[in-house]
């Protein structure tokens, strides 16, 4: 007992003597919780509404593009054309022009008050009589129709064929290049000048040149060829200059590189400034296969 006198003795220090009782602590805690709840729920303070943050889905499969919002350089065209709707409105106003041409002789006294809101505000002005163009068109109608020559018909057929083929080609290209696994997803940065995820002007240019570069492995007897070319574009994407820093020495290879550069003397994008890049063309990927 003498050896451990403090073991059973309660010592009251100044700190323990100032401790509140348990009940007070519980009440205080509840009050604080209620206060926080009030603040968060908007009972005391008005709720703070944060604007919804845009969600960007990044398609890692796609090649990097310089201006993502504008789409890839070869797929800038959207298949949906909602902005065209307002443009069609004026056409609708033009359509009734044909109707008066035919019906004008029949109608003796067109009720301007009824048709004014439907046609155009110019409808009452048509009352004085047929216009000069209308008279001309009537005269033209009275003339005997000449048969179009065979040459003219053939050339028209050619034109239509050309248009059709061009349309089919462009539609096919759009279809092949715009298919995305994530429909409607904005790819890249909203400003179109993103610096994340490898989106850069140099990378874009590299991808563009690669796409333009056509060369078959069957054209070459060796795959260790390398050529380095300095290419210079202005801010508008115009090719200013190119020169071989180190040609490969193989005529076919160097020609194919030259063609890849010259295929687009005007790039479909603009750069932040003058672009001067050393491009190394090699066949490492082919050699690895």
């Amino acid at each position, binding site marked *: 007992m003498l050896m451990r006198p403090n073991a059973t003795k309660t010592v009251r220090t100044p700190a323990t003597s100032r401790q509140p009782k348990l009940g007070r602590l519980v009440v205080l805690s509840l009050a604080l919780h209620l206060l926080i709840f009030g603040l968060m729920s908007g009972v005391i303070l008005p709720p703070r509404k944060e604007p919804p943050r845009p969600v960007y889905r990044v398609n890692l499969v796609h090649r990097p593009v310089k201006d993502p919002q504008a789409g890839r350089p070869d797929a800038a065209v959207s298949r949906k054309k909602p902005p065209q709707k307002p443009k069609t409105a004026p056409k609708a106003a033009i359509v009734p022009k044909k109707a008066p041409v035919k019906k004008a002789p029949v109608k003796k006294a067109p009720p301007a008050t009824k048709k004014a809101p439907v046609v155009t505000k110019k409808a009452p002005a048509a009352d004085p009589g047929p216009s000069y163009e209308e008279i001309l068109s009537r005269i033209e109608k009275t003339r005997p129709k000449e048969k179009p020559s065979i040459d003219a018909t053939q050339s028209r057929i050619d034109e239509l064929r050309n248009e059709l*083929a061009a349309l089919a080609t462009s539609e096919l290209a759009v279809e092949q290049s715009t298919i995305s696994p994530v429909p409607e997803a904005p790819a890249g940065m909203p400003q179109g000048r993103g610096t994340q995820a490898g989106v850069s002007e140099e990378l874009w240019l590299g991808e563009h040149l690669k796409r333009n570069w056509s060369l078959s492995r*069957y054209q070459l007897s060796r795959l260790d060829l390398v050529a380095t070319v300095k290419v210079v574009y202005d801010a508008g994407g115009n090719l200013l200059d190119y020169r071989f820093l180190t040609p490969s020495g193989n005529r076919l290879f160097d020609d194919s590189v030259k063609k890849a550069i010259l295929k687009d003397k005007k790039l479909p994008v603009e750069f932040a400034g003058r672009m*001067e890049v050393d491009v190394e063309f090699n066949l490492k990927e082919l050699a690895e296969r």
Partner: protein
Amino acid sequence: MNRIGQLLILLSLLLVLSPAALAARIEISSPGQQSIPLALTSFLPAKGSKTMPELALEIRQVLEADLDLSGLFDLIDPKAFLADARRSGLLSSQVDFAEWRLLGAEALVKGSYRVEGDRVQVDVRLFDTLGRRMLTGRRYAGKIKDVRRIAHTFADQVLKELTEESGPFNAKIAFISNRSGRKELYLSDVDGKDVVRLTDHRSIVLNPDFSPIGKELIYTSYKNGEPHLYRKEIYTGKEARISRQKGLNIGGRYRFDGREIALSLSRDGNSELYLIGASGSIHRRLTNSSAIDVDPSWSPDGDQIVFVSNRQGNPHLFIIDTAGGKKIRRLSFRGTYNASPSWSPKGDRILFSRLEGNRFDLFSIRPDGSDEQRLTFGAGSKEHPRWSPDGRFVTYTSDQDGKKAIFVMRADGTGNRRITDAGVDSIHPVWSGPWK
């Protein structure tokens, strides 16, 4: 270091590391388009010529098949062609290159023909649509029946222009077929057309090989009851028996200069490799072992021969030096049965067939034994591979469609196609040199 010094170092570092000071560099490690978009138009009659649509179609079809087999091109669908395809002008100034570029064509083949009696004149041009210039053009004159050959010849010219090496399409393929009921020697174009029978031995003919200097073939025939070696001049039809040693006289292969023939003789009871002269006289005995040594194939320089031997157990490939000490080294170590080797005309690879499971497939290997590659897969056995004279294509036998037939493919195993009828057996193909 004082503050000015530190500032200078900082400034120089900033200068060096600034983006403006770093020369931007891009690496492009493969072409985006690994084939050349090519537009091949229908051939049009020249002004004043008789119109023969079937002739134009035949020229176009032959050209298309050859260019497709080359693997160089991505042929554009003719349905997309525009007005220029119907214009007969063959001058660069008469071609609407912008129209072809609209279709994505980088190369364009246009042509015309003029028929007079049984003769035909064919003009063909290859254009570079990006450079707006003619790359190559030819005028061929011949009989109407020669149009296939004309088309093959221009296909070779296209390959020469775009690869700096002529193609192997204006050539022949000799093979053995039993279409007459017996195994006889036949000759056809490389697309299997214009088949001509060369022998009428009414026995068994095997293992043909073209002479490198002239239109001659050697082959083994049982015409006289024994497997002897024969030589035949194709145009004169003259045939001579050049080796009639006792036992087997098989697997004859010409050296690059045509002065010697390597073959297997079993005159001493066991099959050994020998070198004989073009007239049949024995020059040298190459091998001397108790094993079976067969299927010799020369290296292009004539200094080495690859052959098949079971001297170390199973049939494997071995290479023997022909120049000096007859040193022999083993080439293949995998598989249990390797056969019918064929040394590339460029010398860089050796084709052979290997038993895999219960069927043969084709492989290639470097002469030093490295970089073995399997070329064929799928159903059927593939055997007897032989190179085209330019080393870019291979012809072989396959029974993947039932009967054994002759196939051709690119040297990397792609683009394979059957060229002989499926209803009869055809084996042992060999590709000739340029057929002039």
